[in-house]
């Protein structure tokens, strides 16, 4: 086999495999969307799932609070540190408040918050639903005339859509506050300048943009994680694989959607 035919067969193999991955990915996203929409179409169908929604919101929201506060605090602190030494080179330390605030509200809050929620709650949603499949609990619900999509999937999707923006807001507040502590209390940036720049440079558009990202991320995380659990192979290996895939696909999805939404807001 000569050099050019080796190259051609390598390219064919590479693009063939890439194409299959892409098609599989698109198929998965399409299936997840259809399943999510089917679950959401049951939102206003009796019996109401209010109690289960509250329980899920509690598990997801309150359960993820500690990790969100810790991540938010250290993100704000490291941003203040890095920002201070960068801005000091240009003599613009007074812009530190605006830098920390904008970075967190527009970008780091929604993205890092979403990552933490995927790791803490998304994976547990997938594993929980997957185990219910393995142990035939979803079939048992079916046989008791209870729609698993309405009982299991719907409350988790709705809870994620609501919990993610709330947790991201907490991340933002903690991040900005910890940035203030490092910038003003430890590094000696003028308190008035820090706050004035923070208030002057952050507009409502930035805040709405962060929330819109968080809502979209929440919807996507809820759909992907419930879908992966619901469609996981009914084996222990299948559940493990689905949980890993749910985390990977959700995380990559967050970055892609983040870029798309950011391009609209800039």
């Amino acid at each position, binding site marked *: 086999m000569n050099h050019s035919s080796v190259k051609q067969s390598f390219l064919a193999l590479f693009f063939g495999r890439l194409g299959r991955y892409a098609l599989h990915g698109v198929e998965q996203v399409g299936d997840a969307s259809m399943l999510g929409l089917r679950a959401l179409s049951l939102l206003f169908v009796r*019996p109401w799932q209010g109690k289960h929604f509250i329980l899920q919101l509690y598990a997801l929201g309150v359960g993820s609070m500690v990790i969100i506060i810790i991540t938010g605090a250290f993100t704000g602190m490291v941003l203040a540190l890095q920002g201070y030494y960068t801005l000091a080179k240009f003599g613009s330390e007074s812009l530190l408040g605006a830098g920390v605030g904008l970075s967190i509200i527009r970008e780091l809050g929604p993205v890092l918050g979403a990552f933490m929620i995927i790791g803490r709650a998304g994976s547990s949603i997938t594993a929980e639903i997957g185990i219910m499949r393995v*142990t*035939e*609990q979803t*079939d*048992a*619900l*079916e*046989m*008791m*005339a*209870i*729609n698993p999509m309405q009982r299991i999937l719907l409350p988790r999707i709705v809870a994620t859509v609501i919990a993610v923006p709330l947790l991201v807001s907490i991340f933002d507040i903690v991040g900005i506050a910890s940035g203030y502590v490092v910038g003003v209390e430890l590094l000696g940036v003028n308190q008035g300048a820090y706050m004035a720049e923070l208030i002057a440079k952050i507009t409502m558009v930035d805040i709405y943009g962060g929330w819109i990202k968080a809502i979209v991320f929440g919807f996507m995380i809820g759909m992907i994680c419930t879908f992966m659990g619901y469609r996981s192979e009914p084996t222990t290996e299948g559940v493990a694989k689905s949980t890993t895939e749910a985390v990977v696909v959700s995380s990559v999805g967050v970055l892609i959607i983040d870029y798309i939404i950011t391009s609209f807001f800039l």
Partner: protein
Amino acid sequence: MIRGEQLSKYFGDVAALNATDIHIRSGKITAIMGGSGSGKTTLLRLLAGLEQPTGGHVWYGDEDLCAMSVRRLYELRESMGMLFQYSALLNSMNVYDNVAFPLHEHTQLDESVIRTMVAMKLEQVGLRGFEHLMPSELSGGMAKRVAFARAMAMDPRIVFFDEPTSGLDPISAGVIATLIQDTSRKNRMTSIVVTHDVHAGLAIADHVILLWQGDIIAEGPPDAIRQSDDARVQQFLHGRPDGPIPFSRSTTSYIDDLTHKPGTIRLQS
């Protein structure tokens, strides 16, 4: 009457059930028996509507289960119960909540009434006093009995039992078999029992269906099955290793695999 008409189910290229016609008699116990992989659980799941057939129909009276709306299917299921092979108890709930679950979901009964009903069902299976235990704290036999109580909670007309005695000690298996027989007779329930437990199946059933490789090879009352002159039936009933039902299900010859594959040991003739 429940009727399967030309029911078939394929998983990829593998046929789990081949165009089978089946009649389930109302108010009777039908045992579907056969070896592992003979298609009995698939048949049960098709009859319960948990799987869609590749071909054919499942009729409940004059209603086709495969073409039924989800709403109608759930209405029908309110009069059904199912005991799963591995119990399928909801592991986030204790014994009481598991048994009370269908009652909470489908009735407006007062909690005190539900409590009494749950106590009655648990007394029936000999587990009253264990309401507070979680599924993870139960033995296999206890979990099966709790699942039985849950399946009976709504006093169903039709109950599906998937391997109700598998993995149980003889006493627990006997308790479950007796429960199925007594409850079905008293309540005039239509019971469909999938089992490879020959002793229990023949003891409790009014009608027996024997499957092999996705086909019905014999059916009739237990005595007729016992006296069948079909060698496959006799082999299954007596658990003989040699007979028309082969132990090995390999699709290729063992000797061919050993002698003709590169890299394997070549036998000298």
